[in-house]
């Protein structure tokens, strides 16, 4: 107790915190303290007021201690002397002293223990399952344990403790009992006040509820009253309301009916006002109703009337769509309306496309007719009109017929069809457009202008490429246009060359023999050749702009393909050039009308070939090389590397042209030989009987005719080709050599053919052996007669003479001659030989042919051993004739000279 009196401030504060469960204000109220002073005290800030607080706290302490002691007293009185022990109590006391003030938890536990004791075990247990109670529970010597064994405890205490200890224990116990008793009392007091308070509140509530019941009763009464009132009103008004409902329904219906009946006139009005879309709206909104009530005649009437109007409108709309005059926006609207009117999509679509196509075509036609001076302007206008038209059509079509369809299967199909139609439509239009563009481009001959036009075209078309993506790319357009252009150039070239040649032929026919005057024949052929060359040069000039990179950037990526195209065309062209000349040979063979292509034509043609070969081809190749250089510059080096730039070498081309000329001249030779041949043949046939003839007095006149003709031919050729070939020293020698080598093998043939068993062959061989020169002549002739001619007059004339003589021999073989006839032919032949030698120099082939003719006549002479005409007579006759003829020719030429001088 002394310890309690000497309580330090610190202890008091701790105690306060531990035991005072209420707020500080409450404490102040209960003990009449200043709260601030208390707070200061509790915050260990003592001042003059702290003494009072301290005393108050001490009072609380004492009060607390008192109530605790009371408890113990009561407990002890109940428990008798059993609680007396010395050592254990002492321990407990110490523990108590230690725990209670130091840890509030300890105090709390002790309080709980008290409550436990009071209410019996089970309360608060487990909720605060501290280790302490668990330890205590099993110790029978622990006074707080439930299994506390009083007897054992007592005995234990008695046994172990001294007397003094026992007395101390007893004291301890007494004080403990008191404390406990006090605690108990406080608890009971607390509970009691709480209970009292609760009772008070319940009492108060009871009073309030009783008051409310009355109010409720009043309320329910009022409610009942209201219900009855409203019921009453309802029942009284219900009859009328039905009527009103009916009436208002009727009114609505009537309104609708009125609307419907007015519909036709309204539609008419709309149609009149051309407010078609309004009409469509009216119709579509009412069509359902009309259909629903179509069994009622009046409705049906309205419907048919409406339908008629709408049908008329549809017709008008269709008309509008198909009418090419209609504006594009209106057409789109009309199509939209028709679709809303559920017109079959097929008809609308086709009508739409048809109309638009016509419209565009009309536009294009308009452009087509219009004349432009500037290509760019032309193409720009064309593009402006066409492309805007096209893209609008494309868009509106897409919105009308493509986007309308959602993902449903059937409509998907329809969409595909629509797209397909669009493609066709676009294709058609574009083809037409390109055709017009091409036409327009074709007007402008200059390639520069064309390129410009193309560029504009390409750029503009590229803008709407998106819409064309699935049809044809712009590349195709460019390529095809360029290709067409290139092909056009080449075709045109071929055409103009053909034209030049046919003009040449026409001139030849028109002028007939007048062409032989002066140099006009040579001039004509040279003119033709030069025209051909200049045309070819023009071709390269035309092609070059495609590869000038500055002007044609849009073409750059197509360079390689374009160039390939050009290459192919060039090759074809050179092939054509070569073949074309030869074609005329076939044409001449096939044309029955000989007048159409005269021999002069062939001559001129050969001359054209020769000109091209000697002069033209160089120019062409030079120009081509320049062109290829341009191409190389134009193309990127990498692109160029991919291309084998083809080369057409000059010698090869020249050789081919020369061959063509050669063949033409060969045909010419054959052709002319026929006319000479005819003279000879007629000369033979004009004498009906060669058996009965007078001595030859002179060379027959037919030979003059022949030589005249030959000279005419010579003059004709002389207009175009040199008379002799100075450069070629021995042109005939080489041919004779060729013939000779052939004759060697030929004689080999005849050797092998000898059949020793066959007497006839023997005989024949012998006869051949007698005439070795004859045999050789035969072979010379065989391979010489048909040898190709050279490009000069005499060579051609020799060729003609040879062929004619060959035929002459054939004719002689079919005749039978008398001695005089034989002599006559001999004289003729000798004269010809003389003349030819004079004309061409010694020509072995001609001589041998004349010799063979002579032999043939001898063979065909009916007398058994024909004696040739005496050489002197023959010589005399022939030389006289030759002389007179030469004189005649001289006269003729002087005459001609005189005439030309006169002129």
């Amino acid at each position, binding site marked *: 107790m002394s310890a309690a009196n000497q309580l330090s401030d610190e202890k008091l504060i701790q105690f306060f915190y531990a035991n005072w469960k209420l707020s500080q204000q409450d404490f102040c109220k209960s003990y009449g303290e200043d709260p601030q002073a208390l707070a200061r005290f509790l915050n260990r800030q003592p001042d003059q007021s702290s003494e009072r607080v301290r005393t108050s706290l001490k009072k609380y302490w004492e009060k607390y201690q008192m109530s605790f002691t009371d408890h113990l007293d009561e407990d002890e009185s109940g428990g008798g002397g059993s609680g007396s022990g010395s050592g254990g109590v002492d321990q407990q006391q110490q523990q108590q002293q230690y725990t209670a003030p130091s840890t509030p938890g300890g105090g709390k536990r002790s309080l709980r223990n008290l409550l436990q004791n009071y209410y019996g075990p089970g309360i608060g247990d487990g909720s605060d399952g501290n280790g302490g109670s668990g330890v205590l529970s099993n110790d029978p010597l622990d006074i707080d344990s439930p299994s506390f064994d009083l007897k054992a405890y007592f005995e234990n205490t008695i046994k172990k403790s001294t007397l003094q200890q026992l007395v101390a224990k007893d004291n301890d116990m007494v004080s403990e009992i008191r404390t406990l008793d006090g605690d108990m009392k406080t608890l009971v007091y607390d509970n009691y006040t709480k209970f009292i308070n609760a009772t008070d509140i319940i009492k108060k509530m009871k009073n309030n509820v009783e008051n409310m019941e009355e109010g409720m009763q009043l309320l329910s009464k009022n409610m009942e009253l209201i219900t009855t009132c409203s019921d009453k009103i309802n029942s009284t008004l219900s009859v009328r309301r039905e009527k009103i409902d009916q009436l208002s329904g009727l009114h609505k219906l009537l309104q609708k009916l009125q609307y419907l009946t007015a519909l036709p006139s309204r539609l008419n009005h709309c149609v009149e006002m051309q407010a078609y879309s309004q009409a469509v709206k009216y119709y579509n909104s009412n069509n359902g109703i009309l259909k629903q009530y179509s069994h009622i005649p009046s409705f049906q009437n309205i419907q048919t009337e409406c339908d008629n109007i709408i049908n008329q409108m549809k017709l008008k709309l269709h008309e509008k769509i198909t009418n090419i005059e209609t504006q594009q926006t209106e057409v789109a609207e009309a199509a939209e309306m028709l679709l809303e009117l559920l017109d079959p999509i097929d008809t609308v679509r086709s009508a739409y496309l048809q109309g638009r196509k016509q419209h565009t075509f009309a536009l294009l036609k308009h452009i087509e007719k219009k004349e432009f001076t500037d290509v760019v302007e032309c193409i720009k206008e064309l593009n402006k009109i066409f492309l805007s038209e096209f893209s609008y059509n494309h868009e509106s079509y897409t919105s009308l017929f493509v986007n309308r369809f959602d993902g449903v299967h059937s409509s998907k199909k329809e969409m595909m069809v629509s797209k397909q139609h669009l493609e066709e439509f676009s294709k058609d239009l574009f083809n037409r457009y390109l055709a017009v563009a091409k036409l327009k481009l074709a007007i402008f001959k200059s390639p520069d202008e064309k390129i410009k036009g193309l560029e504009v075209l390409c750029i503009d078309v590229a803008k709407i490429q998106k819409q064309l993506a699935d049809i044809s790319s712009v590349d195709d357009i460019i390529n095809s246009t360029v290709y067409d252009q290139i092909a056009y150039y080449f075709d045109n070239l071929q055409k103009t060359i053909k034209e030049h040649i046919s003009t040449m032929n026409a001139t030849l026919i028109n002028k007939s023999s007048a062409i032989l005057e002066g140099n006009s024949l040579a001039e004509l052929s040279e003119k033709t050749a030069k025209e051909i060359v200049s045309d070819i040069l023009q071709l390269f000039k035309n092609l070059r702009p495609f590869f000038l990179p500055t002007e044609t950037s849009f073409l750059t990526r197509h360079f390689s393909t374009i160039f390939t195209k050009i290459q192919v065309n060039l090759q074809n062209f050179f092939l054509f050039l070569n073949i074309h000349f030869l074609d005329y040979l076939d044409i001449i063979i096939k044309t029955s009308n000989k007048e159409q292509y005269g021999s002069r034509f062939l001559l001129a043609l050969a001359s054209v070939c020769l000109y091209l070969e000697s002069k033209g081809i160089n120019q062409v190749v030079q120009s081509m090389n320049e062109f290829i250089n341009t191409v190389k510059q134009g193309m990127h080096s990498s692109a160029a590397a991919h291309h084998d730039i083809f080369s057409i070498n000059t010698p090869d081309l020249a050789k081919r042209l020369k061959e063509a000329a050669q063949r033409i001249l060969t045909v010419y030779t054959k052709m002319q030989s*026929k006319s000479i041949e005819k003279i000879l043949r007629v000369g033979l046939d004009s004498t009906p009987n060669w058996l009965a003839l007078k001595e030859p007095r002179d060379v027959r006149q037919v030979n003059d005719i022949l030589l005249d003709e030959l000279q005419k031919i010579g003059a004709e050729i002389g207009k175009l080709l040199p008379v002799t070939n100075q450069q070629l020293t021995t042109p005939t020698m080489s041919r004779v050599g060729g013939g000779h080598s052939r004759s060697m093998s030929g004689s*080999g*043939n005849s050797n092998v053919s000898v*059949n020793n068993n066959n007497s006839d*062959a023997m005989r024949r061989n012998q006869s051949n052996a007698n005439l070795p020169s004859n045999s050789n002549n*035969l072979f010379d002739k065989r391979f010489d*007669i048909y040898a190709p001619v050279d490009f000069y007059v005499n060579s051609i004339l020799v060729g003609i003479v040879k062929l004619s003589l060959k035929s002459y021999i*054939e004719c002689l073989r079919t005749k*039978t001659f008398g001695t005089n006839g034989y002599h006559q032919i001999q004289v003729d032949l000798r004269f010809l030989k003389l003349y030819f030698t004079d004309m061409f120099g010694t020509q072995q082939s001609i001589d041998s042919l004349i010799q063979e003719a002579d032999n043939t006549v001898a063979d*065909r002479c009916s007398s058994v051993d024909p004696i040739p005409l005496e050489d002197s007579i023959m010589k005399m006759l022939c030389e006289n004739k030759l002389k007179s003829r030469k004189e005649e020719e001289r006269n003729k030429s002087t005459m001609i000279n005189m005439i030309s001088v006169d002129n």
Partner: protein
Amino acid sequence: MFNNNSNNVGINVQSGGAINVYGISLKSRAISLIGADQDSNRFLVGTQALKEENEVRLIEEKENEGIGLVSIFSHPKEIWSITSCTYDADSFFTVYNTGTEYRSSCWKMNHESTTLEELFELKGHQGMIKPILCDPSETDDYVISLDDSTIRLWSIKNNTPSVVKSFGGLNKLTAGSINPNINNQLATANDVNIKGWDFRSGKDHIEINNNDNNNNNNKKTYRESFKIDKAHSELIRDIDFNPNKPYILLSAGDDGKLKFWDTRYTEEPVKMFSGHNHWIWNAKFNKYHDQLVITSSSDNTVNLWHVYSISSAMQDQNKDITSNSSPSIEGQTNEQQQQQQQQQQQSHSSHSSHISSTGGKTNKRKEDKLIKTFEEHEDSVYNVCWGTSNFIFASLSYDGRVVINNVPKEYADLLTIE
């Protein structure tokens, strides 16, 4: 060299020593196959010697042996053409020149005495007589002769010739050919033109391609069935009907061209070839394989042509043209039609075997081209004829050389019926 040649040739597989060249010392321009003798390749060669004794030589080409002489018959006057009678192997016609005029006689060979017996002479010709034409159906019902202007149809029964009809009135008649496929059709060439005739006699007949305007004489039964004016640019020297196709006719002449005509469409030639440097004197279809044609020319060569596209082999493949009964066929007798059908069947069967045997060479088989130029002759080759064996042909040049050649083995193989 020739021996080597013959060794290369397919049919004449010879061990050596065979001769395919035969020489006569006299000038000659007439050769004819004895067609009536189907078992051997016998030819008649007539010489054309103005001053020597002329002769007709009967020669025979035998496998492995070459050409051998059978007998020599002396013949008065130079022979311009020779035609073996289709109905008698021992008889033949010659056209010969007496010096003042041309004559034509029919001769019979007496093999024992090696003399010729003159059976009869066809008299009354003016100017040069062209080779006599015998009935291709191998009867002695008639022969046809052409001189410079007139066509004569002869009856030669009992060796007494009589002119049944004479017509023509043309200028410069040069050649004629009897159509073996259309009864009584004759084609003639005069100068540059070709005309078709119906030389029918006796019974009335449905006229072929009425061309009354062109009928120059008064005898109504003779009609030109077709005409080709200006068929060539120069004189036509030979014409020949395709032995197996009724409307195909070839022509050749001084322009050196070989042309094929469809007698129904005469505006343009069906085919045209040029391969000779000088006049073509003679041109002949092969009797069985009518795609083979030989031509001989005064450029000393003989050309062998393969003209498949208008041959009966081609026709069989595309059976169309002749199966249509065009009006010109109506005149045919049943017999002839049967004959034709047989021929078609024959060539068809041969054709189908071609396919099986020469499948790989189809292209070659179908080409139209010059197969080969034969250059064994050293003088103008005036006459040429096919042998009895399918693939040999004989050519005769003016210097008296007879050469027998074979169709090159590759072509012969193509056409051979296995």
